């Protein structure tokens, strides 16, 4: 058992740090500019620091798998608040293309996706197909000459659809086939006539997700990923990537760090909140849960690398993190007290987190659906179709 990075990695950390310092913040100081972010990501890929598991031929940096180096890079990028190279939808579509795409599709789509030139939205949910995703109705039919798919229907809750250039989506191509067998996985350019994106305002006041309407939208047949009618299998690998443990851990760690900082800054009853027994004890209790997630994730990752069975933890990180995020944001609420209701005040970030922690219990498969999966796959409880654990 070995957790430390070991001194042989000190030099590597220094290298990463110097690289970041040379490239971020950008010369013009504009942290929000897309060009600056792109330039950083391109340089980081070149240097072997990003998209390390992806072949060079597809625009990745193709480095030998090394969880310590990956962790060091992640830490240093987070510390410097530099771009991580992760863009929500893109993290889902790239692994899917690697697993299921044709050589041509990989060549064409992966590299620009990694650089952020193409931004993907995930078009899965529909008004009547949420948890029961396979009941989706948006349909695609082959054009008369068989050269393209014609899509009609509606997607909903599509995150950053208004910023995306493309969508990977699930559509019904075999209306006669059984529920799961009639679905195909298509890539679609959504900057074309026939696509209407109508942003929805979230409870946080932000316009993050949208309704997307398809009215005779076209996509060439070579935009089909996997076989026709086999989209359900293709999707399952996408969902698997959405539930990976590392991102849960990284996210929780950074939220907890902010919480500790808040507890030191804000006073409760004339003393720093962190010294207040009620707050202090809950903070420690949350840390215990966070440490469980962290070290079990290290364990899982090590097991993965050494081809050992991860066991029942595999299905757990998402719902565990969701609970943790709720608990963190509730303690922040207890610390800021009156500021908790002032959306124009300095604690807006925590008010948003109080709400965003709820979106985690919905997006990417609700917590109940995660529980169904844990029950079936980790505990081996008998399959029950009426409870809709993933087919």
């Amino acid at each position: 058992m070995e957790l430390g990075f070991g001194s042989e990695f000190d030099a590597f950390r220094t290298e990463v740090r110097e690289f970041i310092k040379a490239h971020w913040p950008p010369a013009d100081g504009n942290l929000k500019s897309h060009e600056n972010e792109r330039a950083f990501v391109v340089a980081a890929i070149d240097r072997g620091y990003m998209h390390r598991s992806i072949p060079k031929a597809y625009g990745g940096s193709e480095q030998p798998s090394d969880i310590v180096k990956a962790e060091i890079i992640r830490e240093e990028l987070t510390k410097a608040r530099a771009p991580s190279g992760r863009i929500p939808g893109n993290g889902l579509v790239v692994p899917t293309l690697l697993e299921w795409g044709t050589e041509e599709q990989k060549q064409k789509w992966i590299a620009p996706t990694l650089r952020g030139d193409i931004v993907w939205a995930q078009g899965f949910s529909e008004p009547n197909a949420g948890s029961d995703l396979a009941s989706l109705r948006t349909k695609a039919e082959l054009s008369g000459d068989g050269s393209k798919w014609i899509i009609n229907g509606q997607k909903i809750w599509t995150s950053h659809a208004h910023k995306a250039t493309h969508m990977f989506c699930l559509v019904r191509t075999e209306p006669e086939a059984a529920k799961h067998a009639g679905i195909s996985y298509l890539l679609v350019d959504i900057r074309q006539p026939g696509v209407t994106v109508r942003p929805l305002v979230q409870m946080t006041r932000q316009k993050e997700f949208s309704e997307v309407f398809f009215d005779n939208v076209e996509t060439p047949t070579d935009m089909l990923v996997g076989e026709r009618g086999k989209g359900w299998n293709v999707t399952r690998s996408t969902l698997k990537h959405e539930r990976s443990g590392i991102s849960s851990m990284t996210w929780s760690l950074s939220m907890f760090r902010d919480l500790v900082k808040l507890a030191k800054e804000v006073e409760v009853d004339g003393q720093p909140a962190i010294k207040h027994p009620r707050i202090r004890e809950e903070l420690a209790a949350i840390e215990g849960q966070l440490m469980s997630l962290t070290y079990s994730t290290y364990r899982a990752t090590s097991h993965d690398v050494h081809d050992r069975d991860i066991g029942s933890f595999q299905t757990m990180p998402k719902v565990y993190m969701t609970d943790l995020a709720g608990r963190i944001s509730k303690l922040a609420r207890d610390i800021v007290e009156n500021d908790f209701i002032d959306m124009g005040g300095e604690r807006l970030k925590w008010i948003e987190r109080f709400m965003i922690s709820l979106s985690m219990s919905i997006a990417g498969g609700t917590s109940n659906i995660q529980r169904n999966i844990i029950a079936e796959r980790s505990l081996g409880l008998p399959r029950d179709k009426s409870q809709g654990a993933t087919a």
Partner: protein
Amino acid sequence: MNFLLSEEQLALVDSVAGLLRNSCDPLHVHKVFDTPGEAQFDAGLWTALCEMGLPAIIVPEEQGGLGLGLVDLAIVAEALGKVVAPVPFLGHALATLAISLGGSEAQKAKWLPKLATGEVLGTVALCEGKCGWMPDQWTLSGTSLTGTKTLVPNAAEADLIIVGTSDGLVLVEKGAGYTTARLDSADRTRPVDNVTFEGTAAEVLPDGLVAIPQLIDAAAVLLAADSFGGADHCVTMSVEYAKMREQYGQPIAGFQGLRYQLVAMALATEPSRGLYWYAAHAWDAIPEKSSHAASQAKAHLTDTYLQVTRDTVEAHGGIGFTWEHDTHLYMKRAMQNWAWLGSPSRHRMRAADMAGW
């Protein structure tokens, strides 16, 4: 980074688990638990475990031990916790660690080889009063001890007791003149005594004072590991029962409400494995993090264990509330793990101090 058990460690756990499967099935534990009179440990099982080399794990090689670390000891504690083994492992392991960390060369040479084989049984006396588990609460002092220590594991049977005092650690031999009173404690798998010293002769462990935090941290880790083993077993036991028990013409495992209860138990338990591993590993290899991690592990895992045993009773219905069923053995073990060394709440406060908050 390589956060896994080695082949040797997996083999160690396997052999211990194998022995326990044969010699410590639930019926056997019930029998020990139900032996009339004061609670006793299972001498036969303890001898078998000693022959296998269990107490030698953390004894240095110079003194005839295996010279392994706390991770090795903790994964064994997990295996013992899984079957609620009625053996004096905790006190013995801690006494051994105390001498190994704080004893003179002569003390080590005299005691460690015998502790390693189990020829001598050791224990530790830490607590004073209702919950004086931490060194700043200890009032006994000097080499002529007067006062009472509470919740001392197997003091009546022990050949030596390591006593925590206001100036460090001292060693008291059997026959030095002290009285023990066995508690009618809920957990009859690990009896505890209150020990009263009256001018009892004690021998100082020269490096005892600096060894105290390490001793307390090791105790916390071993309790956490035992708790993980127990909780993990409770999850399995409840899941298996749910698959078998039928109501309304189907296995109760089909009812989503119960399924979610089982999932909540698994979600509380499985991820905490990494925490106890980390605490054990920190004790071995990252000393500056050890106390913080140990207290976190003790707090989180003993808390979790007790709740999971409550959930286990609920998942079993009426049968789970009986004396015949295994459920109460686990719940009572969990109660002792919760209280011994101080409540989760106290350890969270200790962890907060250690974090520098």
